[in-house]
């Protein structure tokens, strides 16, 4: 299993050819109280950089992008039902969707956890 992060404050947990995607703890802190989440349906094809999910806090609306290309295996219904899960467990149960990876090569160049945690200190 490997964990990657993007500069858009998303994380990707890869197991075999399956990627689980969510937003980082830093992102949920910046958003504040999350009141709405919309996750993609299984079977939807996403290309890298495409809008995949929506997350809204009291103050702000954001899109969650597909950080890599693939086919959606599952959207996290628990997050759609209880968006506050993204605040309480952003990098665990608050995941947004799972993808079957098209091209594991797209993971190259993403940050590992230590690099990401260091990078956000500079923001």
């Amino acid at each position, binding site marked *: 299993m490997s964990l990657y992060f993007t500069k858009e404050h998303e994380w990707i947990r890869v197991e075999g050819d399956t990627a689980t995607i969510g937003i980082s703890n830093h992102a949920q802190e910046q958003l504040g109280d999350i009141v709405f989440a919309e996750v993609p349906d299984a079977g939807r094809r996403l290309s890298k950089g495409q809008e995949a999910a929506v997350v809204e806090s*009291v*103050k*702000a609306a954001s*899109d969650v992008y597909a950080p890599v290309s693939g086919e959606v295996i599952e959207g996290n219904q628990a997050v759609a039902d209880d968006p506050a899960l993204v605040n309480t467990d952003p990098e665990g149960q608050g995941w947004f969707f799972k993808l079957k990876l098209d091209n594991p090569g797209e993971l190259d160049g993403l940050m590992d956890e230590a690099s990401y945690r260091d990078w956000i200190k500079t923001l």
Partner: protein
Amino acid sequence: MSREVHSGPTDETQARGTPYSGDPEGGAGLPPEQLDKLPLDSWHRSKGGRMVPFAGYEMPVQYEGIIAEHLWTRENAGLFDVSHMGQLFIHGRAVAAALERFMPGDFQAAKDMKPKYSLLLNEEGGIIDDLMATRRGEDFYVVVNGATKHGDIAYMERRLPGEVVIDHMRSQALLALQGPKAAEVLDAAIPGVAQLGFMEAGPFRAFGHPLWISRSGYTGEDGFEISIPAMAAQDLADWLVADERVKPIGLGARDSLRLEAGLPLYGHDLDDRTTPVMAGLTFAINKRRRAEGGFAGAMRIMAELQNGAPQLRVGFEVEGRQPVREGALVLDGEGNDVGKITSGGFSPSLQRPIAMGHVATGLAEPGTALKLEQRGKLFDARVAAMPFVPHRYHRKGAA
């Protein structure tokens, strides 16, 4: 994740009436050194306030979280620093009559120490700002919005006779204590304030300084607005939050509280193309003034009072859970553009999305079903009576 789209008052574009897109900090790319600091700047930071640019100041948008702060204010007492607002002392010969040139209130008959909501109007009847004006003897104490204060002063100075003077009270801070427990808390520090009724004000003393306190606010709750010398503001703030019923509350909750209370926010729900009739603020146009006119924009405003305005400010209850925010379009059953959303968000008290906007007058009746369009998506909504959450003001004579 994308950069966020802001809605609500956490940036200094509010006075321009344009929705602002920016980062979660409301950064606006302004270097911090161009922003003013509140007298309580370091106090806010020490309390965990997340500071964002707003109205030219760095201001706390939240401390522990908007929803928790919002609900705390509805149940206990919240302390707001609104020192960015402009506090003006207007005095000189025949000041009351002079103010009536550009405001539709009856200032000549205004009773001492009774704050009145009023509107600064342009010659076309558009709203330059909304404000509170209180007679203090022969003079008037006026509180205007922070983002508009410099423009307001310039506008009034151009139109006031030479013998009327505006003092901008820059060394005064303004704190608001709001919520059902505000009166019992504040009366312990400043005996006598609980005797004030809603929309009454008066001079008090505390911490060795003179204060001006009015029973008013911007949350729909009972509460007070306290004008205090900036040098004494921290003493009062410390004293208040030492009481376990009081927590500091940021701009984020201030916005969600006032939206639930149906109170308009200048630069969003009101602007210089909105008349008092369109804004549903005709209560601010005094009876004598309606008969006599003689204020800026009177021709148009009196015609609209007679014949109605083409559009009105209304509330919306939005179906589903997704907030619909400023800038969304209002559509009728045929898909025609019939208005726009000027404020919107998630109501922490009602646990649902609510919004405020302008809509064609024929569609402004509560219950009217309309569609809202945001980022290509349609939402079902109904025109709703405001306030969304009932006001709980302390009216004298009422139970």
